[in-house]
């Protein structure tokens, strides 16, 4: 292979790579959010056995490297079940599950912090647990959790860079390709880094706006 200088086509490659990261980030965040909230519900209703499994699973996912989780899904699952798992499928499964574990922890701590104070009072009036969750806990817990959730999302966006290791052609993989072709690592990794940085800042900014709107909204409702 002959190394050569940058071309304008490389910009399209970089944009495509970043697009892959963002698309995967959006999809897995959404799935992770839904699964994590589902797990939190299991815990809220104290479903026997399932609640324990969910807690254990989230601890395991939180306390092990995402890279190892990726390897387990991408290399391990096909070997065990004799199925085909594409890199994108493996990345989607892993990142969704990983996000879910963190969402679960945030949701549970938010619910518990609100519940302890207020549910007892509400129960006196004979309201069901579902009504308590829907009308009393959820609005406040959401306001409580939105800060940690935004921080989580900023982090998960960065975690998507790991999918390059199992062969998904994302921004980091493009960086690798350009690095090998041009032999200009400083330029390549600086540009790649700044693109990730910009994306992270964008997520943080949007999250902050959303948080402010939520705050303003609940403050207004509080009057």
């Amino acid at each position, binding site marked *: 292979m002959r190394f050569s200088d940058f071309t304008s086509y490389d910009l399209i490659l970089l944009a495509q790579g970043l697009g892959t990261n963002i698309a995967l980030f959006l999809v897995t965040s959404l799935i992770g959010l839904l699964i994590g909230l589902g797990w939190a519900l299991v815990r809220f209703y104290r479903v026997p056995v399932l609640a324990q499994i969910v807690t254990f699973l989230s601890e395991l996912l939180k306390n092990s490297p995402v890279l190892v989780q990726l390897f387990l899904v991408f290399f391990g699952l096909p070997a*065990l079940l004799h199925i085909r798992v594409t890199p994108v499928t493996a990345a989607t499964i892993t990142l969704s599950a990983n996000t879910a574990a963190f969402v679960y922890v945030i949701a549970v701590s938010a619910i518990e912090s609100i519940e302890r104070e207020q549910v007892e009072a509400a129960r006196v009036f004979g309201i069901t647990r579902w009504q308590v969750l829907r009308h009393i806990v959820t609005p406040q817990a959401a306001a409580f959790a939105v800060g940690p959730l935004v921080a989580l999302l900023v982090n998960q966006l*960065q975690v998507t860079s790991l999918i390059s290791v199992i062969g998904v052609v994302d921004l980091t993989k493009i960086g690798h390709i350009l690095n090998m072709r041009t032999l200009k*690592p400083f330029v390549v990794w600086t540009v790649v880094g700044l693109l990730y940085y910009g994306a992270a800042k964008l997520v943080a900014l949007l999250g902050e706006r959303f948080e402010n709107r939520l705050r303003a909204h609940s403050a207004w409702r509080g009057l």
Partner: protein
Amino acid sequence: MHFDLSILLPHLGFLARGAELTAAACALSLVGSVVMGALVAIARTSASSTLRRIAFIYVDLFRNVPFIVQLFFFYYGLPELGIYIDAFTTGVVALSIAGGAYASDTIRAGILAIDQGIIDAAEVSGLSRRKIFTRIVLPIALRTSVRPLGSVLINMILTSSILSTITLNELTGSAQIVVSQTYRPFEVYVVLLCAYAALTYLVSLAVTLLHRHLNRDMMEAVG
């Protein structure tokens, strides 16, 4: 479907050596992060606005760019500058710099929480600014930030798995080699996942004990 952990038995010694490398890298990087973090915390609490600005940019940048990109930047970039260091050293440098960005926050919070009266007392006793920092401010700040620094260490252990991508055969890298020899990815990666979870669990236990031990003197005696 076939699941058999016994095939790992002959490779346990090899994996243990990988774990040792992980432990060594993390221990060195923890020291590096605390040093980096302390320096940056000083800069962020200094009177010079330029210094504060530089420190802020460092923290912001290294927290918002994926670690794998930072790692490649150093691994491929440093030789271009004529700096040839091995993968282990590169990994420790990268982990220290990334960890320092997080450690600086907790150390800074610890510094800001110190009672000004204590610093006044040190100042009037004639201690130099440097001595006040190394003998009074830093030890108190480090004690109060043992717990958050523990989280930095746990994150570092998980992040260190990424060092396997620059040919370092730490725990994850060793596991990859075992997979290539046994063709049993599922078993290997399940065990690896649990090993990391157990490792981080032990670290968090140790951190709790250390926190209690170090702060026992600073807690008010009851009664």
